[in-house]
């Protein structure tokens, strides 16, 4: 039996471990933290599985590989809501909606009636909108816990200390792997969680804005995740300016958010390579899976599959970089 160790129990590490177990490996996961939690970048994710919308700025592999994500998460027993994405813009930023529509061809245009049908609580707030069907969202924290528990039940060992030997090591440590991956950088993201029982949304809503783009992802129990800034820094301070911007944008989306409870303000730095695309990097018997940037839950399933195949079947998947450094 092939023995594999996975370093890092964030979304990348847990997905890789899942794919390895599925291929019959004996897996140990090493992470200083025993359970998924606020120490990891994945904890702060939005959980949008929106490959088409991401294609507005992201490169083609993100759109294509991201399409695997919703099915994969559902197969692991994670609740996935497939209700598409709603895209809106405020009055004077309507041209942003046209630009977005050009870049994301798989959309439907909504008139006020269409919007009211799709999201009744936003009726009358926007005179037009885009609906991108075929996209999904999940609760990232629930998803991490679900994967972790499944791996526990499959007999995977979780260790808080490094050590032991294995045939393959999968380094999924995110930004902590900068000690060996020198071109990895941090891109700071700040988010907020609100609670409101006065508004109901069925799907993620993106508010396009030239300065402060916002997305709102509904979660169970009246929670709404607001995200996310994208700042070239690995600083982890939650700045007043960023939080003001996020909250103002939410208020602009619907004034009812002004009365919401501010539950949480989070921040972390996403690991990214210079092209903002993820990489599978092979150095001997160590395989790095890193640089998932803002696409952790979207791309980790595909990357995990490809990394497992690369190691066990000696394939040469895309996004794989041979490296002898």
């Amino acid at each position: 039996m092939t023995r594999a160790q996975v370093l890092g129990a964030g979304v990348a590490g847990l997905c890789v471990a899942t794919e390895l177990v599925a291929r019959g490996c004996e897996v140990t996961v090493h992470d200083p933290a025993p359970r998924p939690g606020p120490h990891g970048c994945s904890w702060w994710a939005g959980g949008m599985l929106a490959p088409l919308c991401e294609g507005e700025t992201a490169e083609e592999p993100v759109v294509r590989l991201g399409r695997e994500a919703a099915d994969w998460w559902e197969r692991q027993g994670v609740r996935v809501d497939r209700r598409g994405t709603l895209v809106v813009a405020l009055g004077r930023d309507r041209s942003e909606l046209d630009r977005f529509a050009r870049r994301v061809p798989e959309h439907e245009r909504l008139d006020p009636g269409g919007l009211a049908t799709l999201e009744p609580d936003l009726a009358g707030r926007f005179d037009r909108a885009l609906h991108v069907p075929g996209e999904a969202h999940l609760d990232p924290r629930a998803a991490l816990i679900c994967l972790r528990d499944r791996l526990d039940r499959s007999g995977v060992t979780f260790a808080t200390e490094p050590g032991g030997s294995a045939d393959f090591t999968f380094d999924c440590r995110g930004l902590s792997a900068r000690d060996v991956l020198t071109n990895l950088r941090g891109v700071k993201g700040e988010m907020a969680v609100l609670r409101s029982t006065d508004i109901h949304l069925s799907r993620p809503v993106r508010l396009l804005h030239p300065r402060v783009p916002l997305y709102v992802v509904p979660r169970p129990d009246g929670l709404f995740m607001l995200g996310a800034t994208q700042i070239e820094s690995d600083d982890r301070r939650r700045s007043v300016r960023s939080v003001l911007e996020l909250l103002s944008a939410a208020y602009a989306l619907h004034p009812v958010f002004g009365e919401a409870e501010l539950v949480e303000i989070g921040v972390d730095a996403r690991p990214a390579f210079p092209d903002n695309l993820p990489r599978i990097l092979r150095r001997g018997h160590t395989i790095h899976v890193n640089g998932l940037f803002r696409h952790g839950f979207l791309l980790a399933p595909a990357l995990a599959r490809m990394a497992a195949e690369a190691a066990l079947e000696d394939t040469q998947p895309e996004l794989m970089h041979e490296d002898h450094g």
Partner: protein
Amino acid sequence: MRLYGTDIASRLMLGTAQYPSPAVLAEAFRRSGAGIATVSVRREAGGERAGAAFWDLVRGLGVRVLPNTAGCHSVREAVTTAQMARELFDTPWIKLEVIGHADTLQPDPFGLVETARILADDGFQVFPYTTEDVVLAGRLLDAGCEVLMPWGAPIGTGLGLTNLYGLRTLRAQFPGVPMVVDAGLGLPSQAAMAMELGYDAVLLNTAVAKAGDPAAMAEGFARAVEAGRLAFAADPMEPRDMAAPSTPVLGQAFLE
């Protein structure tokens, strides 16, 4: 083009914000041949070396870095940011932005002059982001600025040269001062027009970074800047109302 005693080959300057990725940013610089990169110090700051990875990427472009004080709304903020930029990038150059109006991001002319004087006295070489106002331009020069950066239109609007008369007047008033049209450009034709007016260079960011293919757009701007500069230097013809045939008309007895 000579800016504060430094010769710069390219008359195109690009900002470094809002690109899909640093790799795309680098490709845009490569294809445009831009000679100067502006970088915002304020937003990425926070923590001693927090933005270091991105700044290293900017330094790695191999072009001259012009740090800016984007997002500063007061004299004090701008001075502090400039001092931080000088340490981080080891350069006396600073593109000075003091914003006076939140919606249009219009420069605050009073704060701008005051900050320019403080920085120039402190040894900075100041590139003030200003309007096309001639009086303000004179005050900035008095304050110690040797380069001016008038806007074409408000930042990020892509409206082009909204006050052609003002820009023409400004250019004519200070013929020897290097001037860069900064902000508001959306299309290469607008950059060409600025160069045809006799401006020494253009600086833009959003038009390239937010294009569907930033590198191609950057190259488009580079060619337009070159075309506009060539046209300016070639002493263009004056427009006139009466048509004049460009081929000689033979066998015609009288001139009308």
